[in-house]
């Protein structure tokens, strides 16, 4: 395989893996929660079936919707897809991997969040506005923690380029259990739970409109547009879980151009993300939703952890 073919096919495989795997991770978490509650639960593939069903359904717009309503789902999916394509998930050398600066990935995700919030605001209903306002508040609190945690991760490898962080972690396995890494991991888990709207921050399975954060923004969507928004959200789950898994345990990722290494990489990515999903689902089962005004305390805790990660990283270097 030549470099270009390898990079191109790795990128394609990443997009397909996360595109299909994201919804499956969401289905897996729902299954774990159902089992913990003593229910059988829907099959793990249910989110994919829902997407297929929604995709064939009619899209409806409120009378005074602007083009933003229709544009937002496309932006959400597109920005997430680009982030998935350039991040080192299956291979350390995807197309445009050199631009996979961690800041770029974070801001691609943020573009999706902003689009979701604008889509929620567009029709002008009380619920959409409420959801958007809450999502932006949580986002603004989670972002500093995320950025500082990322700085902690980039310290040892002197680079904020994701492929390079992973490559250097592969070369120095002892970094993984360093105090700086572990603190950054704790901070990232909090951020990921907030960014993917899981309990204790948000409850993705609630029907109570007044308590919703993310779901409130999607209430005005129907049919294929709802499918896009939901799909974008699941891909985001897939991407964030994969990044957390690969940043801390990169082993299994394909570093050279062989078919076998790519197959192993996909399998190990699936296994690692399933473990992350299992962990997040168990956190969800064990916790209750925090009072909205307690969320700043949780996210501030995440920020403190990430600052400690940086400080420890600088001291122990």
């Amino acid at each position, binding site marked *: 395989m030549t470099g270009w073919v390898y990079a191109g096919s790795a990128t394609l495989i990443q997009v397909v893996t996360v595109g299909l795997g994201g919804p499956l991770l969401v289905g897996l978490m729902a299954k774990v929660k159902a089992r*913990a509650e*003593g229910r059988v639960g829907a099959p793990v593939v249910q989110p994919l079936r829902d997407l297929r069903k929604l995709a064939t359904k009619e899209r409806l717009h409120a009378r005074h919707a602007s083009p933003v309503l229709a544009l937002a789902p496309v932006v959400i999916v597109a920005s997430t897809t680009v982030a998935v394509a350039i991040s080192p998930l299956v291979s350390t050398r995807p197309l445009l991997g050199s631009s996979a600066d961690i800041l770029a990935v974070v801001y691609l995700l943020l573009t999706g969040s902003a689009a979701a919030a604008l889509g929620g605001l567009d029709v002008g209903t*009380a619920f959409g506005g409420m959801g958007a306002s809450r999502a932006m508040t949580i986002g603004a609190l989670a972002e500093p923690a995320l950025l500082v945690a990322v700085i902690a991760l980039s310290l040892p490898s002197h680079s904020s380029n994701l492929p390079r962080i992973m490559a250097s972690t592969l070369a120095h396995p002892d970094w993984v259990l360093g105090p700086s890494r572990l603190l950054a991991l704790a901070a990232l888990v909090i951020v990921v739970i907030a960014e993917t709207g899981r309990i204790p921050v948000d409850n993705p399975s609630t029907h109570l409109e007044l308590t919703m954060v993310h779901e409130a923004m999607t209430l005005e969507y129907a049919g294929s547009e709802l499918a896009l928004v939901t799909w974008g959200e699941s891909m985001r789950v897939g991407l964030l879980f994969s990044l957390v898994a690969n940043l801390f345990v990169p082993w299994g990722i394909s570093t050279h151009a062989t078919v076998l290494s790519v197959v192993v990489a996909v399998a190990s990515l699936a296994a690692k993300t399933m473990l992350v999903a299992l962990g997040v689902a168990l956190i969800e089962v064990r*916790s*209750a939703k*925090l*009072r909205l005004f307690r969320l700043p305390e949780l996210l501030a805790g995440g920020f403190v952890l990430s600052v400690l990660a940086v400080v420890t990283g600088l001291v122990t270097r």
Partner: protein
Amino acid sequence: MIGATRRSEEVSPEGLRRRVADLLAEGRRLALVAAHDDGDALRVVYLFTSGAPDERVELTLRLDPGHPTVPSLSGLSFSASRFEREMRDSYGVEPEGHPFLRPLVRHQHWPEGWYPMRRGADRMPAPPTETTSYPFVEVRGTGVYEIPVGPVHAGLIEPGHFRFSVVGETILKMTARLWYVHRGVERMFHGEEPAAGIAIAERISGDSAVAHSLAFCLAVEEAQGLDVSPEARNLRSLLVEMERLVHHVDDVGALCNDVSFAVAHARAMVVREKLLRLNEALTGHRLLRGALGVGSTRVRTLPSEATMREIADAFEDVVSLAVSHSVVVDRFEGTATLARSDAAALGTVGPVARASGLEFDARRDHPLVAGHFTPVTQPAGDVLARFTQRVEEFRASIDLVISRVRDATRTESPPPSPRDARGSGVGLVEGWRGVVAHRVELDRDGRLTRVRVVDPSFFNWPALAVALTDTIVPDFPLTNKSFNLSYAGNDL
């Protein structure tokens, strides 16, 4: 001491306020106000109740046929002001001096001047094509916005519209617009044989089948002059407690669900299902329908003490799971506090009132069976207090059920003995939501001419709005669940 005394007095419009002020000052509570259309004129009955000894005092006011008005009691009792608004919409009785005459039962599509409870108003005329919207009070100020919710909600929730005025996330004011499920239940009773009324009473609010049908039976028995046997009273008390158990465990689980603590909810639903199946074994119906008759009570079997202890243990597991979770307790504690003074002023009843420190319980004041009953109360008045109140009432009900089972000598009550028939009667029952009141009148042929139903939710809905002040919007569903009021029972 079992057996209530009820006396009736005629009052003049001029003397009404003073008489009511005296009765309230004696510590009696306004339990029910019922208007009646006697054909030639309208008549209003005010029922005041007090406990230990169980006394009921009725004031009857005959209205001017050409000009049906009553002097408003809104200055004396908040509940009276709501009863008056209800009478105005259903009977066209104008309360004079009422400060807040907005429609209550009446929705905008009702034609002007059409009163559904008046004689001859059998069919609703075609609704007007032009309607105005309900005049919600608008809160003004920088950053104040409104959130309209409902009447159609997600999930299995009855219809009701809530209008929130909010700054940021803090609720400044909440107005509940109800009566979307007004079915004209009271009118359905008219002209029926009393025995046929039981099936209607069981369906007033499906989750309070026993409380409503028992209150109805008690009222009919007083009107017909029937003295039910102690065996029947014992079984009736058992059924009321079984109903309380199911719904209290349901509420405990639902409160956990509303803070997304799904595991505790799922476990509570297991206990609930066990109780529902037990109820089916008892009466042939999961919601305990069909056990009550006028003058009689019959169950198929009795629950064993061991079964009740097993259920109690499973319930304690759910409770300890919830109260040992710091986030759950944090969500409950200090949320939507209903002050004792507000609860008293609004005429709140049931677990909601007791969670705010008010002692009133119809099981103490209007007992079904002999023996002393001491209600439990909580001082705090927040969501945690309403949660704890239900937990403690559940425990007390388990003990009550066990003692009723011990006292039960047979599963079918002996026939009632006759006493003076009065033509009218009152039934008061402490259902799981609070006191249910029915007042019936019979004609010479023994058919129902008027049944007035008051569900505890009628008294408690205004308290929800008061408790919400300064609560944040995402805590509304939790607060609403901690009150868990009936829409069907309120709307009738």
